[in-house]
């Protein structure tokens, strides 16, 4: 309004105009004060008197205006004078003033939280929730939520069934915005059982008919969250599912920006509960005048909804899109066809022929994109569609994008025996070897080695050439290492080489770009917000510790004890059936592949971590001497946040997904149960168990099996003193006598208030279990992460590690090395800081605990200050790496859609072999 000019010099003159009876002028003066008070704090005091006077004006409009403006003047000196008028206004007879004053408490709290608490405004605000006027209630709720969000520990919004009831009543009467505040607040509540959840849902569903899209989305959020608590067998559950679909569809007729938010959220909802929208495919068809961001989102949802029933329609649409003009959209459409082929097996043939049609168009980017996806289809359905290779080869010359070239080379190498001139084709690529991107170089190297193993007589020269190019003339360590490994394999044992390089490849899995379940659950709690639009947890983009409380879906309470989300149930075998920590190779591979499908609960994730560690062990060079040195079990520090950037590659991130993807909804990693006390040592009582950490409490999950011939009763448990003072928080409850061959599962809550004694190793726990027969002793190692407390976070970067309560403090890039600073806090309050150094191209990670910063830890840890090796399971890793090598498959590419990116940069292990 001032055309950018600074008019603060006029301050005294403007303030003089404050006592006017022209309302419009008064408003402008107030506006001026808001803008300039900060630059002239001393003079702003001059205005205080008028404010105080205006707060007692007979006209409520003026009173409200004064209290509203005062809150916006962020000058400390003024806030002191604000308290009295504010107190009066909070009790004003006019609801308009009260509702304004309620918001003012939040403003004041933002400036001076202590003052607000001291003055007791928070209690007044809480009282306003019971106000007779719905608008006041809504603003009080909004203000309290805002304060609670920035002070997660304050426990301000102490929601209980009574206050919830009040909110639900106000919900019917307040304005659309008030309804949103209340719904958002309700979403933070966790009902005590499914009945309460259902009754809240019943009262929230009418909001789905509101004309305002934001009200609808907030209502959807509450319903999606509370639905988690309802049993699927309930009639009401089905009704609710049916009620959700129409409003979601109608959101697509809103304004494009709202459509975009809705689509991003529908994307989450479809992943969480695909059944809601499975019959609504058509509404996601792209219209010509949709903005591009809406088009791309619709496309994504179409693929998620694709099934055998509707695939014909989807394909026809996708083909239509693939002939549009917008390059980005066309590329995505072509890629979508590939994803359909992999997702819906019955459609694969149709997809392939559609892709071939598209290749015939000779539109360059369409052809390249099609070749990339056809390679994925080959991997999913080997030896089925090779007849198309000839067509692909026709387009060899037009490929200029690395991804497409690499895909084509892979195809040639893989099917070398069926392509007569494979050697010529590959040779033609070899001419410009050094000009190619790493992705293509690596692929070419592998392809030629494959070719050599298949047709050794004709291609000896070629393989020599590529090996020397890769090993002698290249600066890329990845390429060089891969070259050397092939070279040595070929020269020492060609038979083994054949077994390794030409081993049967595991099939790629279908839906791979699903959001990992814990994150998905968290995002469901954030429906309608920025987090749901970015598909990132708020901690990833909101600065500081403010507003980064983790939300998770409530566990199902009444009907089942399982906390697994329904989708993951088939993937996660019940723990305890897997007695060994290290599974068989087959399992391991299978599970590595399925990483994205669901969180495997038993053995495999652990083993995967150990692959990780194994790599570190093998290649850590100078670190080798440290293996076995420290007894301290370091935190699984190798699990760095997966979104480190492109250099880390997605294969790696998929491995890391495990850390957060496994286990319970609360996100903590759970070690599979192991036998702690074999039956022969304990007169027929077998005990196996594990430790879990859920929502702030540690528990020991025990499985007691009676293998004796007599009934066992009178169970009791005791712990010896240990390093962290772990002790049972409740007596061991075995309700009925344990009859022969019977097994019971018990979850024993633990606390950390027991007496402390340093153990060797640090995480050793000695346990005594008594029954009517005898007392038995055993000792076990508990994983350290169960001691990591939730508030160990210093700053937020990654949600993945947060699932295990390891938090990233900072990430820096120093001299081309990624430095990650991790923090975690043990139950006894000790902070552990670790520095994690990751060099691109160097597969070993260095972990360092800076000793000076941690005097307290120094005395606890025998080796603080030295580089520590993250060795949860170091030895297992070695053999696993060997196993992997034999299978000719490195721990990569669980992901169809992303593995192209992972190709050049995925540097976990140099002995990663061709596919």
């Amino acid at each position, binding site marked *: 309004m001032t055309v950018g000019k600074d008019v603060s010099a006029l301050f005294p003159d403007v303030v003089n105009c404050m006592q006017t*009876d*022209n309302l419009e002028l008064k408003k402008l003066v107030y506006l001026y004060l808001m*803008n300039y008070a900060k630059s002239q704090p001393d003079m702003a005091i001059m205005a205080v008197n008028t404010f105080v006077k205006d707060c007692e004006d007979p006209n409520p409009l003026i009173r409200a205006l004064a209290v509203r403006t005062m809150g916006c003047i962020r000058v400390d000196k003024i806030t002191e004078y604000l308290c009295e008028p504010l107190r009066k206004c909070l009790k004003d007879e006019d609801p308009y003033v009260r509702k304004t004053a309620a918001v003012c408490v*939040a403003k004041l709290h933002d400036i001076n939280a202590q003052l607000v608490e001291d003055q007791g405004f928070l209690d007044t605000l809480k009282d306003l929730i019971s106000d007779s006027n719905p608008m006041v209630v809504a*603003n009080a709720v909004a203000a309290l939520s805002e304060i609670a969000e920035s002070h997660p520990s304050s426990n301000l919004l102490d929601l209980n069934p009574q206050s919830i009831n009040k909110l639900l009543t106000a919900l019917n009467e307040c304005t659309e*915005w008030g309804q949103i*505040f209340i719904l958002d607040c309700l979403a933070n509540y966790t009902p005590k059982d499914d009945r309460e959840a259902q009754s809240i849902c019943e009262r929230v569903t009418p909001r789905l008919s509101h*004309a305002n899209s934001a009200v609808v989305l907030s209502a959807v959020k509450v319903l999606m969250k509370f639905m988690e608590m309802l049993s699927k067998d309930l009639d009401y559950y089905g009704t609710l599912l049916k009620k959700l679909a129409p409003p979601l569809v109608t959101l697509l007729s809103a304004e494009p920006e709202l459509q975009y938010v809705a689509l991003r959220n529908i994307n989450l909802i479809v992943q969480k509960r695909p059944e809601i929208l499975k019959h609504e495919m058509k509404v996601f068809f792209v219209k010509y005048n949709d903005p591009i*961001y809406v088009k791309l989102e619709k496309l994504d949802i179409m693929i998620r909804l694709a099934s055998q029933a509707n695939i014909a329609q989807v394909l026809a649409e996708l083909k239509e899109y693939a002939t549009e003009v917008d390059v980005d959209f066309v590329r995505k459409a072509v890629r979508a066809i590939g994803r359909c082929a992999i997702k819906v097996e019955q459609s694969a043939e149709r997809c392939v022929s559609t892709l071939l049609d598209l290749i015939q168009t000779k539109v360059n980017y369409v052809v390249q994109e099609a070749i990339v996806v056809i390679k994925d289809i080959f991997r999913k359905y080997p030896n089925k569609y090779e007849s198309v290779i000839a067509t692909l080869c026709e387009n060899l010359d037009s490929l200029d994008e690395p991804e497409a070239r690499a895909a084509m080379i892979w195809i040639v190498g893989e099917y070398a025996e069926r392509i007569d001139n494979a050697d010529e084709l590959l040779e033609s690529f070899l001419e410009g070897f050094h000009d190619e991107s790493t992705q293509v170089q690596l692929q070419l190297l592998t392809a030629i080695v494959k070719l050599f193993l298949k047709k050794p007589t004709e291609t000896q020269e070629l393989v020599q050439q590529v090996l020397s190019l890769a090993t002698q003339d290249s600066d890329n360590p990845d390429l060089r290492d891969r070259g050397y490994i092939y070279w040595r394999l070929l020269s020492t044992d060609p038979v083994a080489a054949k077994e390794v390089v030409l081993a049967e490849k595991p099939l790629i899995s279908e839906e791979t770009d699903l959001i990992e379940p814990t994150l998905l659950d968290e995002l469901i709690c954030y429906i309608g917000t920025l987090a749901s639009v970015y598909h990132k947890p708020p901690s990833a983009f*909101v600065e500081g510790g403010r507003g980064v409380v983790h939300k998770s879906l409530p566990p199902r309470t009444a009907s089942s004890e399982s906390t697994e989300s329904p989708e993951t149930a088939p993937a996660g075998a019940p723990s305890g059936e897997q007695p060994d920590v290290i599974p068989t190779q087959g399992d391991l591979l299978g599970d590595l592949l399925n990483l994205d499908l669901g969180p495997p609960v038993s053995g495999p994730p652990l083993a995967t971590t150990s692959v990780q560690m194994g790599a570190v062990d093998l290649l850590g060079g100078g670190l080798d001497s440290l293996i076995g040195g420290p007894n301290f079990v370091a935190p699984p520090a190798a699990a760095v946040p997966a979104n480190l950037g492109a250099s880390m590659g997605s294969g790696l991130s998929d491995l890391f997904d495990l850390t957060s993807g496994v286990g319970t909804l609360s996100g903590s990693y759970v070690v599979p149960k192991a036998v702690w006390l074999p039956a022969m040592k304990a007169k027929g009582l077998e005990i196996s168990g594990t430790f879990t950490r859920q929502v702030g409490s540690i528990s020991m999950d025990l499985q007691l099996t009676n293998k004796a011939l007599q009934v066992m009763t009178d169970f009791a448990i005791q712990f010896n003193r240990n390093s962290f003072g772990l002790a049972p928080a409740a007596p061991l409850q075995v309700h009925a006598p344990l009859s022969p061959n019977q097994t019971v599962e018990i979850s024993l809550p633990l606390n950390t208030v027991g007496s402390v004694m340093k153990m060797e190793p640090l995480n050793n726990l000695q346990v005594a279990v008594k029954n009517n027969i005898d007392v038995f002793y055993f000792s076990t190692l508990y994983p350290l992460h169960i001691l990591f407390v939730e508030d160990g976070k210093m700053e937020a970067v990654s949600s993945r590690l947060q699932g295990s309560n390891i938090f990233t403090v900072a990430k820096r890039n120093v001299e081309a090395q990624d430095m990650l600073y991790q923090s975690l806090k043990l139950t006894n309050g000790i902070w552990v800081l670790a520095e994690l150094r990751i060099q691109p191209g160097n597969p070993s990670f260095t972990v360092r605990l800076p000793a000076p910063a941690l005097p307290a830890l120094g005395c606890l840890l025998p080796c603080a200050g030295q580089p520590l090796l993250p060795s949860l399971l170091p030895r297992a890793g070695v053999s696993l790496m060997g196993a992997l090598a034999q299978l000719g498959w490195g721990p990569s590419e669980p992901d169809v859609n992303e593995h192209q990116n992972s190709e050049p940069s995925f540097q976990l292990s140099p002995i990663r072999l061709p596919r």
Partner: protein
Amino acid sequence: MSASAVFILDVKGKPLISRNYKGDVAMSEIEHFMPLLMQREEEGALAPLLSHGQVHFLWIKHSNLYLVATTLKNANASLVYSFLYKTVEVFSEYFKELEEESIRDNFVIVYELLDELMDFGFPQTTDSKILQEYITQQGNKLETGKSRVPPTVTNAVSWRSEGIKYKKNEVFIDVIESVNLLVNANGSVLLSEIVGTIKLKVFLSGMPELRLGLNDRVLFELTGLSGSKNKSVELEDVKFHQCVRLSRFDNDRTISFIPPDGDFELMSYRLSTQVKPLIWIESVIEKFSHSRVEIMVKAKGQFKKQSVANGVEISVPVPSDADSPRFKTSVGSAKYVPEKNVVIWSIKSFPGGKEYLMRAHFGLPSVEKEEVEGRPPIGVKFEIPYFTVSGIQVRYMKIIEKSGYQALPWVRYITQSGDYQLRTS
């Protein structure tokens, strides 16, 4: 939770007016907005949500203005966009047209409104009719009794003031159904839905209590009315104006409300039942490279013979480099609109069951353009009065006011084209 500040920018990204609600985002951050927007647009990754460092921009565009909200937190995005659109609505009601000029002419009132619309990031009163009662265009002398907060602002009925008086009490009900249609190039219907709205124009005194009865199938089933005589309609997703008691509708499907004064949209609904496309188009677009394009379009009215579609406009895409148009139509007139690259064939009245034809001929330059052109669909606009596709009917409108006056409800039905697209090959 919500927006930190709201900006209104001109088309070049220069702030015209802004309001800082929370003070946690530096007001200078807005300077990053426009460059960011341009950059993202160039990358083809434009989205309504942009971020620069820690600051997130949520924006919409209205005529030659950008409305931008900034936030640092995990704000409720749908709330912010809804609010921005509501703001546009309020400003439009105040200034008729919302554009740069009207903002510049009304700085004071814009400030006043921004102050009232939102407080500390929480949207407050956004009902323009109520706002107009205490934020007026003319400067307001502060006299006792004047310019008070209307009690309506905080009432449970926050959309209607008390003490409204009319000599003649009337309600006009408009039932408008828009047909959205998407047909692919082979002529098969991909998507056909009806989006209906019921708009009310209320001239009623006092605080009347209204009840609207429709031939809603769910209601008929509830009340046992679903006999063969009563034709009923299944409404798929009904959305109501905030005046309608939602929980009551949820319980017994009664639409009861105290209406705002004047014009408003009472409800909207959606039906995805397949109906025969009302106007069917068959087209042949033959392109002879370097010489000419020949277009033949056949339009057929597939509705009752008694009904007539008014103001029919069929827009047919033509290549952007086409020249020298020639048309022949059996009825109506055709016009070439080069700035949109379409031929618009308008037919004033189009009775049901009739079939009309249009031919067009264009020349093409002998030197062809490099870039490939998109294939825009054929669009159709029309309006058919006295008729609803879904068969929805207003069965009654009960008006009860304590003074007991008699009021007349008037009902009008219209079917019109919505997003009506037929893809071309």
